[in-house]
């Protein structure tokens, strides 16, 4: 057992927390947070596991560095999409809300706009 392995195991736990939140929480921004937590967990597993035996290893570190930058770009894109969705539909959740609007489709004209 080395500190690196401890961080790898913590990464596994983070993955679990993130997955749980991603499935259960309906608010989109919180879903995004959960998704980011999962990503951080994966990064920790990658680096921690690789450095468990061999000490500092630049190869997984470089991979994780690219991963972090891609993750922030994806997060920013997701925020753009979420804000756009909120702007058009006035909601911050996808799941039940979508079903509800389908039910009273006739009474509200709101539905036309998201369909664009």
């Amino acid at each position, binding site marked *: 057992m080395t500190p690196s392995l401890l961080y790898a195991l913590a990464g596994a736990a983070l993955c*679990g927390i993130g997955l749980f939140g991603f499935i259960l929480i309906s608010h989109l921004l919180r879903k995004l947070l959960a998704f980011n937590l999962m990503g951080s967990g994966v990064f920790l597993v990658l680096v921690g596991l690789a450095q468990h035996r061999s000490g500092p290893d630049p190869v997984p570190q470089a*991979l994780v560095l690219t991963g972090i930058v891609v993750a922030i770009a994806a997060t920013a894109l997701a925020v753009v999409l979420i804000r756009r969705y909120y702007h058009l539909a006035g909601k911050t959740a996808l799941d039940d809300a979508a079903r509800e609007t389908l039910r009273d489709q006739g009474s509200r004209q709101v539905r036309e706009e998201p369909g664009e």
Partner: protein
Amino acid sequence: MSRILRSLSVASVCLVFVAGLAFVIWEISAVATPVDLPARLAENLERSSVENPVTAVLLNFRSYDTLLEIGVLVIAGIAGISVARTSSLEDPELRTSDELLYALQRWLIPLMLLLAGYLLWAGSDRPGGAFQAGAVLAASGVLMRLGGIPMDFLRPGLMLRLGLSLGFAVFLLVAVASALHGGEFLAYPPEMAKTLIVVIETVLTLSIAMVLLALFVSAPVNNAEEPEEGGS
């Protein structure tokens, strides 16, 4: 009731997932790795012509990954811009009118630009490099934007397109040129490696900052634009 049942089942699934993952990590950690990557990297570090091993991996040994990564970033930036409906960038509503921010800006922005330059330059022999510099540059751009400093290059147009695609284009150009020159794809000629790496890092910094900044700018959705899209 069904809600509690649902969260319980999801929790148990996640617990099983974590337990499986932890078990696998534990098992893998007991197995010796067949290839000693850090040692091989240390042997070949001189050939990469930079001293920081992470930069060597990013821009020389595994530069294909970095090329694809900047490609992904450019696509994300384009997607963000095309989804956004922003009105004029000087819209006073988007600004944060805060005295403290204005005062802080005068001190912070020059420092942050300096820091970005330093990080870029330091990347060759100590921690730092294009990604960190790009992030700091984007952060100072965000600060400028919040303070309402006009940034014309963020308007849709030639400058924006050029800034977004510069990093990817130069990187790809170097890759193709080295392939045509008789080497392999992305294998720099040894005598020019250092120059090429510095050039690529510089344009990468600019492009990364541009993508992140463009995504940040396109995030606010303006009320004023609504009628336009209803008609389309």
